[in-house]
């Protein structure tokens, strides 16, 4: 299966390419008052506003670390309009399924992310 993979806080994660519309360098994020904590805010992409979800927050519980290489992974339909904030380098490659929720990429075990579940989780207010 075709995957995009990256490291967050030392842990390797991967997500199916078909869940992602595109990857772009992180741009300015405009915070939305009263929004759930896992939503960092809105970013501008091709003239529209997309919602940026704090992936490290959802996965590791840490708040975002600003690195020089940060990316926004815009999700594909039916989740278009949302994007994951990934403060890491992003790579593409092929992987094979391992245990449920994991895949092998280059002999390393990666956690396979479920975009829909993550988006749902980001709407929580605690």
């Amino acid at each position, binding site marked *: 299966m075709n995957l995009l993979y990256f490291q967050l806080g030392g842990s390797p994660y991967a997500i199916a390419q078909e869940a992602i519309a595109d990857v772009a360098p992180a741009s300015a994020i*405009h915070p*939305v008052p009263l*929004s759930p904590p896992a*939503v960092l805010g809105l970013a501008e992409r091709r*003239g*529209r*506003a997309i*919602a940026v979800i704090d992936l490290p927050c959802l996965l590791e519980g840490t708040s975002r670390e600003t690195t020089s290489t940060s990316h926004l992974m815009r999700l594909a339909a039916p989740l278009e309009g949302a994007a994951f904030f990934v403060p890491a380098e992003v790579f593409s490659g092929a992987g094979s399924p391992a245990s449920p929720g994991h895949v092998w990429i280059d002999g390393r075990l990666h956690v396979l992310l479920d975009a829909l579940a993550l*988006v749902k989780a980001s*709407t929580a207010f605690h």
Partner: protein
Amino acid sequence: MDLSSYLELFVAEAREHIGAAAELASSVDVKPAGQDRLRDLFRHVHSVKGMAASMGFGAMSSLAHDAESLMDLVRQGRLAPSHPTRQVLCDALACLERMVDRAESKQPVDDADRGTVQEQLRGLLRGGGSAEAPAGTPDPGGSARPAGATAATGPAGCVKISMIVRRDRAFPSVRAAVVVGQLGKLGRLVRIDPPMAALRTGRFDGRLQVALVSDLTLRALAAKVAALDDVDNFTLVPTDRPPEKAAPVGSKASLRVRADRLDALIEDVLELMASAGRVESGIAGSLPGSPVARDAESVRLLARRAYDGLVEMRLVPFEIAAHRVRRAADELARKLGKQVSVAVEGEDVRIDRSLLERLVDPLLHMVRNAIDHGIEKPELRRAANKPEDGRLLVHVERHAAMLSIVVSDDGAGLDPRRLKQTAIERGMLTPSEAVRLDDADALMLITTPGFSTLEETTEVSGRGVGMDVVRSAVEGSGGRLRIESRLGRGTRFLLQLPPTVALVQAYVVRANGIAFAVPLATLMRMAPMDDQATTWRDGRRFWNLGSEEVPVWALRDVLDLPGEPNGVSHGMALIGKSAGGSTVGFEVDEVVGRREIVVRPLPLPLTGLSGYSGAAVLDDASIVLVLDPANLPLG
């Protein structure tokens, strides 16, 4: 030949033709002299037949063929477009529609009812030559054609009228033109000799020849022509029908475009408009007044025109869905033996077509719900001192760029207690939770998945639409659903939908350095918050509007904004209406200016966040949140 790629096109075209035909069919006996309509109806059915045949759907094309033949008879006047005929035709069309649906979902195309319908059709066809309409059939509205007309006294069809227009009167060419106009009222003018252009220039030798297609009988026609004052002599000669004119090419021709291609184009033009705006402001900054600056402005205006034009194309009048709603209501009412008068208000409200597509099925479901469970049978209504005709109203309105659709009936209403009961029985609520639920929330219980007490599988073509699907469709479009009901009096479903894309006039304001946009339509007034205009009471600020005191909330407090105020001595208050209908004000630090912005609903994890009606991207690529003052959380 692999036709699967043409399936989409076929489905779309077939639906359009069937829809149009159905529309025509439902009204064909109401309006007089609908030769055009009959012809159009015929053509639609004919098209469906052709398409079905080329797609290899034999059953469909066979049915369509029979329907077409029926239409042909009706068109020729050999069969009266009476109620039974109309009924059979409608049935046939409905059957065809179902078959198209099955084709779309790649199921075997044949329909269970086809056989029955075709039988009926053929029955009518067989009796077509003598086409005896049952006596006493009420013909509401009165047809211009006498029932059971024979060929001799049937519609004249195409006749050639050669006339001599009196030349001894003044302005003969003008009079000839008048005659032509009067003849036009008698039918459809196919040919005018000399042509109208020549008549207008005054070139007229008195001899006028027209070919007219009329529903009138020859005798009637002759009488009418004779009655024309300016005509001296004339002859009436039936001729062959001239070949059908192809649809006129030109400004009225229509083009079929894939919706997603149009959407992609709109997105690109939106970006173009934003870039053009940036270019213009950039050039205006460094080279004001130069020719290049004027060109940049033109570019922006042209981009804007292109955008407006494209967005227009996305908007369709609600009317398109209205007729389906009406039809469904009529059918169901008839089936269930209930009397319902269906009214649709706001048919000309223009709605984004993709939104409308998403709403059609939920609307139909709500309408069917209303007729099925809401409106009582006539006897019950009479017993309850209600008029026998149930009233079903679909009211569509656009207010401040928000679309509101209300489906209301004057039926039995919903009982919150019963709903709670059902929820407890189905294990959806514990009794203690149910007690804490207020009536409004209890009514919303019907939108819980699996709640439907009665499954509708028959009417809805197996699509399984329930109120939960309605709610998710509405909320998925960024909208809100509310249900109001009074037991015994009726129920109202209120849908509030943000526009998919809307160009809105708004004020850009700042609080604590953060920019927001407030749509003009949500504001009543703007007022500076200087000390003379405000009073303090119980720690709350009030703005004096004449004798009224309007409570003013600071936006930075309402939204809990970080940072510091801009450092102005006093801010501006935006006065508008709260959700409860009272007047409230929101104080901001400054008003930056008025802008026309493209408001889009907030994207996915943030949909339904109350207080915002969406977000917009300004000319400089910065993002502003568009406030919904009526729904900001106060206190």
